[in-house]
Structure formats: C-alpha cells, structure tokens
C-alpha cells in the first residue's frame, strides 16, 4: 500500500471512541449479499478494530489505531468491484442527494426517448408508408441509445456484478434480454426485416427504472413513517434560517442546521447545544428518570425531552445515525442475515426464471419463429417477480423492530418475535416491575401545609417536568394561585430551589432513606416533609387477568417480605396462578426460573434480576438505560406500561400471518403471469407494467397489514 494513498485519506480521518475513524460511501452495493461479501473480505484485516455498515450498506465506517489500514481496506473493497469513496461529515447527505437527482434525470431521458419511439411505432403499426417506416426505425435506433447507454447504467452494473460473481440477480436476465433485443433489432434494421423492438426496449428501461425508483421511495417512506416514531413526537424539526424558521420533514434536515426545540418537545436530532442551558430528560438513553442540565457546547441527544425553556441545537446526526437510532439499528443485527437469505433465494428464483424463458424460447422458436420466441421469453423475464422474498419479507423484518418500538418495546433482535409465541410461563419481579419506579406524593402530608405554602410548593414544582412534579400536578386545584418563581434552579438528584415573593424556597430530595420523603425549606428553615409512597402500577389486576385469559401462568419473584408479596400474588386469577417466591436473592430467583421446563418469559428491572433473566427463554427489562438493558435482556420496555406486552404478542402473530400472505400472493402471481407470458398472452411492455404493480401490491400488503395492531 502506498503511503501517498494513506496520506490522501488524512482529511477524512477523525477520532471517535478512542480510535481513528473513517466513513466510506460504497458505490455499487445493491443487496445484503454485497454487504456480506465486503464483510468477509475485510474482517481478516488484523489492524481493523471495528467496522459497521449503515444506510442499507451504502455507508461503511471503519475504526482502527493504524490509519494505513484504511487504504488497504479500500483497495480490498475495490478488488471486489465496488468503489469506496471517503466521506467528510456532510458527504453522505450530498451523495444521497446526488443519487436522487441522477435517478430523476435517467428516468426523464428514458421517458422522453421511449415516448417519442412509441409515437413512431404507433405510426408504423397504423400503416405508415414504407419510406416513413424506414425513417422512423432509424430515428428509433438513435433514440434508444440514450436509455440503453445512460439510463440503464444501474441495470448494466447489476448485470456485470452478476456475471463477475457468478450469482444470479434480477439484472442478469433483463440485461440479457436488452442486449439480445438490441442486437436483433439492429440486425433487422439493416436487413429490412420486421423484428424491431426499439420501442419495447426503451419502454422497458423506463418502466424498470421508474418502478425501482418508486419502490425505493415507497419503502423509504414506510420506513421513515416508522422511524420517526422512534423519537416520539419528532416527525418534523423547526429549522432556523436567515429569514425566520421553517418546519422541515425530519429526513430533509441537513447537518449543521440549527433546530429550535420548545419546552415539552422531544429533540428530533443529535446535536450540540447552542443555548446557554437546557434541562433535558434523557431517560430513553440513560434510564435516569430525573432531568439533567446541559450547558452550551454540550452534546444533546435525539429522543430527550426538553423540560425547561426553549433551546437551539446545531444538528449533528439525524434518523438512524442518532445515538438512539444506532441502538435500535444494532438491535436488528439479524436483519442483515435475513437479507442475505432472501438474496440467495432471489438467486435461485432468477436462475429458475432464466431456465423457463430459455426453454420457452426454444419451444416457441421451433413452432412459431424468432419474433414470437423473443417476445415470450422477454415477457417471462420481465413479469416474473420474487417480490415477497426480495423485499417483502426483509421489509417486514426491518419494520418489526420499529413496530415493536412504537408499541413500547425495544428488541435486541427480531427473532424474539418468533420465539415469544411459544411462551407458557411468565415470571414477574415485583419491585420496579409491578410497582411505579417513582412513588406518589402522600396527600395528607401536603395538606398539612398552609394554603399559601401549598401554592408556593406547587409553583416551584411546576417549573419543571419531573416524575415527582408530575405527582404534585395531581394535587393541583383550579383555585390555587400560581406564584411567580425567579432564580429557579434544578439540582439533579437533590431537588429544586427558587425565589418566590422574596423568600428563598427549596424542596430537597430524601429518597434514599427508608421513609422516602421530600424536605420543604423556606429561607433555610425546614417547614416540613412530604412523604413519598410506593404504588402499584395502574390496572395491575387487569393485567394479571388478561395474561391468564391468554393462557399464561404467572409467578411472582420478590425480595420483599411475605406479607407484602402474598396479597399481590393472590390477586392473580387462580386458573393462571403459578408460584410465588418472597425474600428472594438473585441466586434463588435464578434457581426458581431454571426449575421450569417450559418456555418462559422473565420480566425484571434489570438490576438484581440479571441471573434470572438469563435463565429464562426470553427476558424483558423494565425501562432503563437502553444500552445496559439490551446487554442483559432480549427486549426492554421503552415505557413503563406492562400492557405493551400484549401488543408484542399481537405483533408476533400479525407478522407470521403477513409473511404467509406475501408468499401466497407471490406464488400465485408468478404461476399465472409466467404461464400467461409463456403462452403469448402478455407482451413484454405489458409485462413491464404488471411487474411493478405486483411489487406495489406486496408493499401495500406489508404496509396495510402492519399499519395497526
């Protein structure tokens, strides 16, 4: 490897996670198989510490301590026939835009040329004079060249990849048909024969490109509509520019743009804080329910909720590149495996289609002549579509993680959805799982203060959105006066302070002691305490009843005393009452779970339940820091709502049903359409129209089936 190449990469290398990192844009990656090939090629490089594919395999990030290994990696990728282009921080968006524009132009060229050729063909079919027929054919010859040479580049690229790697892909038969059709038509043009298909060739190129473009946009839209819900409430961003502010769709926000976020809103992007200070609830990332204070220049993360005044944030990352997005992407590692499987099946399918079309060509040539043989073989190639396996099922896999998330569950990998159907026993931890993580405010203690004191306590608490403040909100009545609070300060983990009507007020947390309470102080003198009590989650008995109704056996494991656990256990309907364990240690919980031979689900809060969770077939963690939870559990609840589990049961069933529906549709479609093409009922142009329609139907089945649970 030349040192010059390594030096030329210098501007693109930056430090990340204690290592050197470079981001590459990969040209020519079309499928999971390409990604697999590149992974295999570069995973042997010993100096390469880590690599990660993103953006459907188009983006590759490399980490290493040796910058020389980056150029070596790029060479290896190049030797496979792909081009790796180093990217600066903003290049990925530019590359995507460039690709979008290029797609539009290629389609436009194909459309204009195909449209004109079709006009000439119509004149020929309607009986134009021989002189004009020759003229129109010659013009068509010139007009078909731009679609074939410029617009169809992506088809030729796929064709070449397929030939090089001896693996079938959908571009191979289309490429063969285009080459053969062009050669035959050109030969006929110069020998005054009738077998001229310039019109079909141009129209097919246009339809193939358009259908792929529309499908790409459609899939991106479906994914985006699920993606945006990862960061609930963040479908759009309020972007500032020189003339004011503009609301932008999240996928159109550019890195470097300034986003304004109002109190109560969720940050739509990862970024750097431009305002003096921001109070943020970062529970989605850290699991810490209390808000934290971020200063100007600090990194802030998408998914955090703003608890204080409005802030400005400079955008650094968007969508799946955000920190929360990356956790979710990591949680779907097995998706690439699914794509690889699907592309292997597409290969078999394409091989089969080529065989059928060659066979049809041979038979038709023998009985009906060259023209009919070519028409039929070409129509088969165009109409056959493995849409369910090529993108239907991979799309379901990709969406299932997002769907689970929208229903309150982050999955470590989507295979959990397959396994969850076999669960019989459910073990529930008590503290933190069946009880609220933050307890309610004892109303009697609050009422022991004078009316004015109560108003001031409430005014101070309501300056911030916080789990304890939310407990106070329930105690607020309309008659209560709202006092103005100045010099408000939030002290994470310790409490609040502020000045009200010239008095210094403070509410200090005393949550670690046995009797959890808040201490209220005025001008440094203690006025009293407000107790905080343990409460069970809402509708816990209804939850038990529904679980039992669905055939699950419930057991409760708890470190608490018998008198605290038994009444709760007895509230489980008898038909589904399993076992109960009180005064449990982490070890006894694990042994308890291991004793069961059936498939089991353990629901815990991820701290003292780790051993028991690992002993169960599937483990589910209560809300907490995503990263920690996913390292111990198969799934984590993103909200504290236990009822989300029912959504996941439903989702698992729905996904199985949708997959069956897709395979059924694809099989029936191919059976009828290939038969119709082989018998001459479908012409190549009609086939090129039907095929994308079938793909759209597959996508619509996915989209409609999984839209609602």
């Amino acid at each position: 490897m030349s040192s010059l190449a390594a030096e030329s990469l210098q501007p693109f290398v930056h430090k990340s996670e204690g290592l050197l990192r470079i981001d590459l844009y990969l040209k020519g990656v079309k499928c999971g198989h390409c990604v697999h090939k590149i992974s295999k090629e570069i995973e042997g490089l010993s100096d390469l510490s880590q690599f990660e594919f993103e953006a459907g395999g188009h983006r590759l990030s490399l980490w290493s301590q040796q910058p020389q290994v980056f150029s070596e990696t790029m060479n290896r990728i190049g030797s496979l026939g792909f081009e790796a282009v180093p990217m600066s921080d903003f290049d990925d968006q530019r590359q995507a835009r460039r690709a979008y524009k290029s797609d539009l132009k290629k389609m436009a060229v194909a459309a204009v040329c195909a449209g004109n050729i079709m006009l000439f063909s119509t004149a020929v079919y309607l009986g134009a004079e021989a002189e004009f027929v020759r003229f129109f054919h010659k013009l068509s010859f010139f007009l078909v060249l731009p679609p074939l040479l410029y617009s169809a580049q992506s088809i030729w690229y796929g064709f070449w990849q397929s030939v090089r790697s001896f693996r079938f892909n959908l571009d191979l038969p289309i490429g063969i048909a285009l080459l053969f059709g062009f050669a035959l038509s050109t030969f006929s043009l110069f020998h005054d024969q009738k077998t001229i298909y310039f019109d079909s060739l141009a129209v097919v190129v246009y339809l193939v490109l358009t259908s792929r473009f529309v499908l790409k946009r459609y899939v991106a839209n479906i994914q985006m509509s699920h993606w945006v819900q990862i960061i609930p409430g963040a479908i759009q961003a309020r972007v500032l520019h020189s003339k004011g502010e503009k609301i932008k769709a999240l996928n159109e926000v550019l890195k470097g743009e300034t986003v304004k976020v109002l109190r109560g809103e969720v940050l739509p992007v990862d970024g750097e804080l431009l305002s003096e200070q921001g109070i943020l609830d970062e529970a989605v990332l850290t699991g810490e329910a209390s808000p934290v204070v971020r200063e100007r220049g600090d990194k802030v993360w998408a998914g955090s909720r703003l608890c204080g005044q409005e802030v400005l944030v400079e955008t650094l990352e968007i969508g799946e590149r955000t920190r929360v997005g990356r956790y979710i992407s990591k949680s779907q590692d097995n998706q690439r495996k699914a794509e690889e499987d699907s592309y292997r099946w597409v290969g078999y399918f394409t091989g089969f289609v080529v065989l059928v079309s060659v066979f049809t060509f041979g038979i038709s040539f023998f009985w009906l002549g060259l023209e009919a043989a070519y028409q039929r073989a070409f129509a088969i190639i165009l109409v056959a579509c493995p849409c369910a396996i090529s993108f239907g099922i991979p799309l379901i896999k990709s969406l299932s993680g997002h769907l689970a998330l929208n229903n309150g569950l982050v999955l470590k990998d989507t295979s959990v959805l397959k396994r969850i159907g076999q669960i019989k026993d459910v073990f529930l931890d008590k503290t933190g799982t069946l009880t609220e993580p933050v307890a309610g405010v004892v109303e009697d203690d609050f009422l022991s203060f004078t009316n004015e004191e109560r108003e001031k306590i409430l005014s101070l608490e309501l300056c911030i959105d916080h789990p304890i403040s939310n407990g106070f909100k329930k105690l607020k009545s309309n008659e209560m006066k709202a006092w103005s609070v100045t010099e408000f300060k939030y002290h994470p983990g310790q409490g609040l302070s502020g000045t009200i009507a010239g008095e210094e007020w403070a509410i200090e947390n005393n949550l670690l002691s046995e009797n959890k309470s808040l201490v209220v102080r005025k001008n440094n003198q203690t006025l009293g305490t407000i107790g905080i009590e343990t409460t069970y989650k809402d509708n816990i008995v209804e939850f038990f009843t529904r679980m039992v109704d669905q055939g699950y056996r419930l057991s409760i494991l708890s470190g608490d005393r018998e008198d605290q656990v038994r009444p709760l256990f007895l509230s489980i309907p008898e038909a589904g009452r399993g076992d109960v364990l009180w005064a449990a240690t982490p070890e006894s919980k694990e042994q308890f779970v291991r004793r069961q031979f059936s498939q089991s689900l353990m629901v815990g809060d991820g701290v003292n339940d780790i051993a028991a969770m690992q002993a169960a077939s599937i483990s589910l963690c209560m809300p907490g820091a995503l990263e920690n939870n996913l390292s111990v559990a198969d799934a984590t609840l993103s909200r504290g709502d236990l009822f989300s589990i029912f959504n996941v049961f439903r989702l698992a069933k729905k996904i199985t049903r949708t997959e069956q529906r897709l395979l059924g549709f694809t099989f029936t479609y191919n059976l009828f359409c290939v038969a119709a093409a082989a018998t001459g009922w479908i012409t190549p142009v009609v086939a090129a129209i039907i095929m994308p329609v079938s793909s759209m139907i597959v996508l619509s089945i996915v989209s409609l089936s999984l839209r609602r649970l």
Partner: protein
Amino acid sequence: MDILYVMVILSLGLSFGFLAFFFWAVDSDQLSSLDSASFNILEEDNNKKGTSDE
C-alpha cells in the same frame, strides 16, 4: 408529405427542450425537498411570512 419530416424534427426538438428544462429544475434543487412542503401548511402565519419568499 415532406412537411412530416420537419414536424417530426420539431417535435423531437420540443421534447428535448422540455428535457433540458427538467434537468435545469433538478439541478437547481426544485425537486429536492418535497416532504417538507406538506408541513409548511401547518406553520403559523407569521412564520409563513418569513419563508414564503425563500
């Protein structure tokens, strides 16, 4: 009938003219932020004023 040759060439010229116009529109980013347009209708009037002449 020779006029047909002229007409054909003219119509081809016209369609390529439209193609050139489309290329210009793509290059000048007329088609690159289609998703945000649907959100603009939801903006407050005072914000619209600021953005309408963008």
